[in-house]
Structure formats: structure tokens, C-alpha cells
């Protein structure tokens, strides 16, 4: 649905140039929630703004459906932009207009009849749960409410895609989750493709189907979230996952301090899907006769897929240990001996 072809963007003059994007290729399919994660300065903001050409690439093409939008005139581009909604980290609402007028803004740009505006805006207010705030000004709203207005405004033109520019980065964790749930609903109910950029793994993990990790103007890793999350290949990806896990350093220290030998090993086990909720470990150790201590464990979901991760210290004979590992590996997603 959206295809970026050899996108390059450089800033500055011929004396001093910085490259924001370098020969970047990316394909986003219809109906998915695609997340782009990267540190600040990695180029993710430029990447997102290239999709609706708020930033024109220095070279390369942007395809929206069957249209190469980099080749369009200003007027044609304005037309295409109306099929793409966009929401922002700082909401970017008109401070001089009420909630109602903000949501009506894109409709008035195309001279929609008054009755139609009234009906559409009312529906959108209901969708984002702000019916009783329609006559308030943005300054009277909380951050989460402002973002809801932003979302309603972005949906007013019935877009095919919603671009989210760090949409939850200015919000507290609870509000972030409610906005993410709303985005997920919109994706499911209206079938709108969502492209979001973020620096928080949590956001990716909660709602995205696929993720791309951007670093130094290039995509270093991409794939389904479950795969990238459980089997990160690139250093930057690992960093993001580590940041998400607050206890990572503490755990490292604990593992370091434990004595290990042939009869005691620390193992990381990744569960994915329904196996997450099954008593795999306890059943297996009963047959192999090893004992174990759980050093750390998490159970969560990645969008709809449950996953779990256990750091376990096994004790037993070498043979029993290996038998245990083989049995575990046959039932769970992945097993890795750390020490």
C-alpha cells in the first residue's frame, strides 16, 4: 500500500551535509499496524514525513497505492494527503478553535456541506469519547483528550492510512495505553492502515503487527513483532528490548554471582502463543529429575499473541540437563543456555 523506494534525504548545503535517510526501502501492507522504532536522530521522523511528503526526499520514490506521489503536482499532492490522516506528539491542534471546529477543519478545507460536517463530527466525537467536550478549547483539555481530538481530526476525511508521529510520547503511561487501545480499535473496526514511529518498545509490543528498527538513516531489522522481539539480531534492537526490561542489569548481576558448573546452568526460555499458559516446565522436570529456580520471569502479550520469558537455573546431572533442554525445546519457542 505504501512503498518507499531507495529513499535518500540529506540536509544542509554542499559544504556541510547530514544524511537523514540513506537508500531506504520499505513496504507497508494494507490493514496492518506498522511500527518504526529508533533513537532520536535515527531518521524516523524524516521517514514518517516522507510518506506524505511533508519532507521531500532528496532522491527516491514514494508510492501510495498505484501512485508515485513524488511525481505529483502540489495540487494533486494536496488531494492525496487527504487520504492520509496524521497525528502528532504535540497534538498540533488549532488553539483558536473549539474541539468541534478542530475536527471539522479538514472537512471545511474541502467545502463539505454543513449538515454532513455536523453528522461526521458527532460520530467522530462519539468514537473518541469526547461528546461532552465539543465546545471546549484545546487549552481546557488534558493531553490524552487533546490526542483524541487529533485522532478524530485525522479520521475526518476517511483516510486509508493513519500516520502517527510519536503520538503517545508526551502522555503518561496510563493515557498512552488508552490511546493505543483506541488506535487498535480504529485499525480493527475501520480497517485503516497505521504507520507509527516511536522510541518506546512498549508501544510496538502493544499494538504493532510488524516493526522496523531504524538506525543511522537505514532500516537495520524488520519483521513481525514477535520474531523481532524474541530474536533480535541487531545491536540497536537488543538495546530497545533491554530498555523495556527494567531489571535487566539487576538480573545480569544475579546471574554473574551464581556459581555455575556442569551440573548447574542458567537458561533463557521463550514461550510464544498458547504454550505460554501451560505447565510445561513443571511437567518436564518431574520426568527428568532436575531441580530448578526461577531467576526472572515475564508473561505478557504482543498485541494478541501471549508470550513469556523465563530465566531459570537448572541443577542436575549433565545428561538430565540435556534431556530437559531437548524436551523443553520441542514444546516452546526457543531455549538458550546463558551460562
Amino acid at each position, binding site marked *: 500500500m505504501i512503498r518507499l523506494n531507495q529513499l535518500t534525504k540529506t540536509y544542509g548545503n554542499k559544504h556541510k551535509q547530514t544524511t537523514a535517510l540513506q537508500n531506504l526501502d520499505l513496504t507497508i501492507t494494507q490493514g496492518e499496524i506498522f511500527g518504526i522504532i529508533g533513537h532520536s536522530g535515527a531518521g524516523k521522523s524524516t521517514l514518517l514525513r516522507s510518506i506524505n511528503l511533508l519532507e521531500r526526499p532528496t532522491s527516491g520514490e514514494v508510492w501510495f497505492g498505484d501512485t508515485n506521489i513524488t511525481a505529483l503536482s502540489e495540487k494533486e499532492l494536496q488531494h492525496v494527503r487527504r487520504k492520509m490522516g496524521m497525528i502528532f506528539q504535540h497534538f498540533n491542534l488549532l488553539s483558536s478553535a473549539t474541539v468541534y471546529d478542530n475536527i471539522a477543519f479538514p472537512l471545511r*478545507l474541502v467545502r463539505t456541506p454543513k449538515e454532513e460536517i455536523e453528522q461526521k463530527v458527532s460520530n467522530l466525537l462519539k468514537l473518541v469519547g469526547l461528546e461532552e467536550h465539543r465546545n471546549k478549547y484545546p487549552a481546557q483539555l488534558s493531553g490524552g483528550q487533546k490526542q483524541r481530538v487529533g485522532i478524530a481530526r485525522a479520521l475526518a476525511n476517511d483516510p486509508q492510512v493513519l500516520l502517527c508521529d510519536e503520538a503517545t510520547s508526551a502522555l503518561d503511561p496510563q493515557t498512552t495505553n488508552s490511546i493505543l487501545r483506541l488506535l487498535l480499535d480504529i485499525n480493527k473496526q475501520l480497517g485503516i492502515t497505521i504507520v507509527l514511529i516511536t522510541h518506546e518498545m512498549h508501544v510496538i509490543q502493544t499494538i504493532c503487527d510488524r516493526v522496523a528498527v531504524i538506525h543511522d538513516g537505514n532500516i537495520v531489522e524488520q519483521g513481525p513483532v514477535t520474531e523481532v522481539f524474541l530474536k533480535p539480531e541487531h545491536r540497536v534492537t537488543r538495546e530497545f528490548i533491554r530498555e523495556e526490561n527494567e531489571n535487566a542489569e539487576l538480573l545480569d548481576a544475579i546471574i554473574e554471582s551464581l556459581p555455575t558448573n556442569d551440573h548447574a546452568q542458567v537458561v533463557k526460555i521463550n514461550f510464544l502463543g498458547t504454550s505460554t499458559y501451560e505447565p510445561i516446565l513443571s511437567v518436564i522436570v518431574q520426568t527428568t529429575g532436575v531441580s530448578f529456580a526461577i531467576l526472572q520471569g515475564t508473561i505478557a502479550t504482543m498485541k494478541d499473541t501471549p508470550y513469556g520469558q523465563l530465566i531459570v537455573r537448572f541443577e542436575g546431572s549433565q545428561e538430565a540437563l540435556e534431556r530437559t533442554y531437548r524436551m523443553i525445546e520441542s514444546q516452546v519457542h526457543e531455549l538458550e543456555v546463558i551460562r
Partner: protein
Amino acid sequence: MLSAAVDFSNVDWNEMGIATWDTVRMLFFSTLFTMIIGLPLGILLFMTSRSDSNGSRALYSVLSLIVNILRSVPFVILMISIIPFTKIVVGTSIGVIGSIPPLVIAAAPFFARLVETSLREVDRGVIEAATAMGASKGQIVGKVLLPESMPGLLAGITITTVTLVSYTAMSGLIGGGGLGDLAIRYGYQRYEPSVMIVSVIVLVVLVQLLQMLGDRLVLKFSKK
């Protein structure tokens, strides 16, 4: 003490009334034309200053230079030096009508800069959002820039009008009419300080009223 030194009995209140009315008319028309010329000029300055195209930036440099020149020439000198131009435009260089062209030429560039500054205050993100929604340049000016900067624009109009009050007084030097004219003719040339004092008081009251009105409007339009 003041009344001992100054005799207010020789103030011609009828003439004072006419002069006040002249000043109000001068202010009204000069403010009006200043807005008509200054607002588009300010918008043009703003739009060309941030454009990507080389042509626009060249236009900005030229406009900016003209504005700076007009703003740096002292009003008294400007007023006198454009007398021939004034005569061509309105047929006379004296009286209420004759004073309007120099007032507008002096105030419009000043107001245009105030407009440009107000527009710069508009959150870039809001402009970006409008662009992302497919707004044209004209729509961005009319539906985003002007409404969003309304408090700033109103404050700019107030400042410009108050500045014009003092300019109208100065135009009395070349027979511009109004309170300034009166103050100079009676107060300065005929040594009648009473007329001068009353004229100045009326001007102070006028400025006070304008400022109050402006502040109120700014408050009404501030939604932040």
C-alpha cells in the same frame, strides 16, 4: 499652581472640538489604509521568508529592504520629502486628507513587521498539521495563520494606532490639521500654553481609550 500660570479662558473649545474630530478622522483613515496595505505585506513577508524557492527568498530580501528603509527614515523627514507624491495621490498635502498618505507610508511597514512577527509565533506544528491535511497555501493563511495569530494581530493594530496618534500630532508641523496642528499653532507659535496642555490631555485620553479597547479585544480572542 498651574492655573495661576496658565489661563484656560482663552481656549477656543469649539476649535478644540473640531481639531479632536480631525484627529479622530485622520486616525481612522490612516489606520484603515495601514491595515489594508500592511496586513498583506506582513503575510507576504512571512510566507516568502520561510519558502524553499530561491525566487521567494529574493522577493523577501527586496521587500525586507524597502520596509527597513521606510522604517528607518524619521517620520518628520518622510512626511516632508513625500509632499510631491502626496499631492499626486490625494490632490493636496495639507489638512486631514493630505496627512493620510505620509501616515500610511510610515505606519504600514511598521505594521507589516508586527504582522510578520505575530505569524512567526504561530506553532509550526499546527501549520504542518494543516499541510498534512491537504490545505493549500491560501487556506493555511486564511484558516490557520490569521485565526491563530489573532490576539497578536490585534495587539499589533493597537500598537500601530497608538503610534499613529503621535504621528498625527507631528503632521501638524506641515499643516496636517488636528490636535497636533492646534498645539503647534497656538501653544508653540502664539505662546498659549493652555491650548497646548488641553490638546496634549485630549491626546493622552485618546491613547488611553485605544489601548483599553485593544487590550480587551486581545483578551477576548486569546484561547491559550
